[in-house]
């Protein structure tokens, strides 16, 4: 079914884009890669009167290293993350996570800003940004503000984005030596959203001691969930398989997923435990390898 007709604008500057969004309020929708929005338009689940196409905003395409941080412009496509070239090498976790998104066609057009703004509870990139304590940069009529990932994701498909605000980019920490990472997910069919996905980042103080662990899960709640209990249990511990697996057992008790047509609540809790364990083990093994690199 064709989308309901709308007025189309393709502003050349961010200021114009924000002004258009402000002028048209709830009637307007910003367009980035369109891989979530266009199906919503053609299914007529979204019927904006005005579409503000952000794709001409060159300033949102930048990728650059800023000391210990990596800046990724909102319009950077999943395929670029998956290829992981240039400055993106500083955060190779993105490469693994992006490769799991949808299908190759979704990745060719979908953007990191679009994925964060859409905030699907089962999406990979929100979980990555949550696991890495990333910061989302928003620009609106009142200027720019930096929102920590923990405050950005408010609920299912709901974020801290205010009226007429757009994501301009995201800041993630560079993953240095001694840091390992892994993304594990289970989905029923190729290309589906994950039923549950786990992102783990393990930082070693020495080959025998964990400095810090960060775990975020997608698909177990309305927003990507960190596992503070599992993380605390592993600080200062040995990174051996048994310790990691025992700690991961706590994942099931730290989440309270709803059951739905795709999976029951108890199956999601089971996946939370199993995928957290797998991700932690792979991340710890990589951290040990990267220590010597």
């Amino acid at each position, binding site marked *: 079914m064709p*989308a309901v007709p709308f007025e189309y604008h393709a502003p050349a500057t961010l200021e114009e884009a924000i002004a258009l969004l402000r002028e048209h309020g709830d009637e307007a929708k910003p367009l980035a890669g369109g891989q979530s929005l*266009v199906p919503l338009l053609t299914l007529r689940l979204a019927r904006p009167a005005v579409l503000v196409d952000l794709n001409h905003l060159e300033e949102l395409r930048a990728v650059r290293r800023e000391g210990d941080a990596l800046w990724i412009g909102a319009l950077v496509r999943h395929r670029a993350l998956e290829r992981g070239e240039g400055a993106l090498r500083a955060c190779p976790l993105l490469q693994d996570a992006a490769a799991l998104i949808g299908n190759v*066609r979704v990745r060719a057009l979908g953007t990191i800003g679009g994925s964060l703004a859409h905030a699907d509870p089962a999406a990979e990139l929100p979980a990555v940004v949550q696991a890495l304590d990333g910061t989302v940069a928003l620009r609106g009529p009142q200027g720019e503000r930096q929102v920590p990932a923990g405050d950005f994701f408010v609920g299912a498909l709901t974020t801290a984005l205010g009226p007429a605000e757009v994501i301009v980019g995201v800041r993630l920490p560079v993953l240095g030596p001694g840091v390992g990472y892994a993304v594990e997910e289970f989905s029923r069919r190729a290309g589906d959203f994950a039923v549950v996905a786990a992102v783990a980042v393990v930082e070693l103080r020495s080959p025998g001691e964990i400095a810090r662990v960060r775990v975020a899960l997608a698909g177990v709640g309305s927003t990507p969930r960190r596992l503070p209990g599992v993380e605390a249990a592993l600080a200062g511990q040995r990174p051996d398989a048994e310790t990691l697996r025992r700690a991961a057992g706590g994942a099931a008790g730290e989440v309270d997923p709803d059951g739905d047509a795709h999976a029951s609540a108890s199956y999601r809790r089971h996946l939370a435990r199993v995928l957290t364990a797998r991700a932690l083990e792979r991340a710890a093994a990589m951290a040990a390898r990267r220590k010597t690199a």
Partner: protein
Amino acid sequence: MTDLVIAFTLNGRLREVRTPAHRTLLDVLRDDLGVLEVKEGCGEGVCGTCTVLLDGEPVSSCLVLAPRAAGRRITTVRGLGDGDALHPLQEAFVAHGAAQCGFCIPGMILTACAFLEEHPAPSRDEIRQAIAGNLCRCTGYTKIIDAIASVAGRKTRG
């Protein structure tokens, strides 16, 4: 809603259409330009039958709004060969009997073509992963994978 005039290159030829912005590239190709080798399947970007190459990368034309095609280079399966000569992948699909009803084949070949450009010597498993987003309800994929592997050639592993 005022119509937009959108120009793009289709299989090497400059084309211009007049369309309202809410239509998709798939609508424009099939309904305005009669490009019927691009098939409409699910209309939600899942099945891969409407795949075209946009500046060389496979995309779902059903998820590209018409104005997003402006100034781009669009390739359909008809744009792969050279005049009357089929592209090696097309030859391979014929030789291996990889098509049954044929509905998925244009998208399948375009996806495989872009994949082989980037990965000239893939394993069978890499080929399976590469076409995971293109659904075929007839063949069971075996002959499709055989065809792609044959073009990937003697360098193919596994």
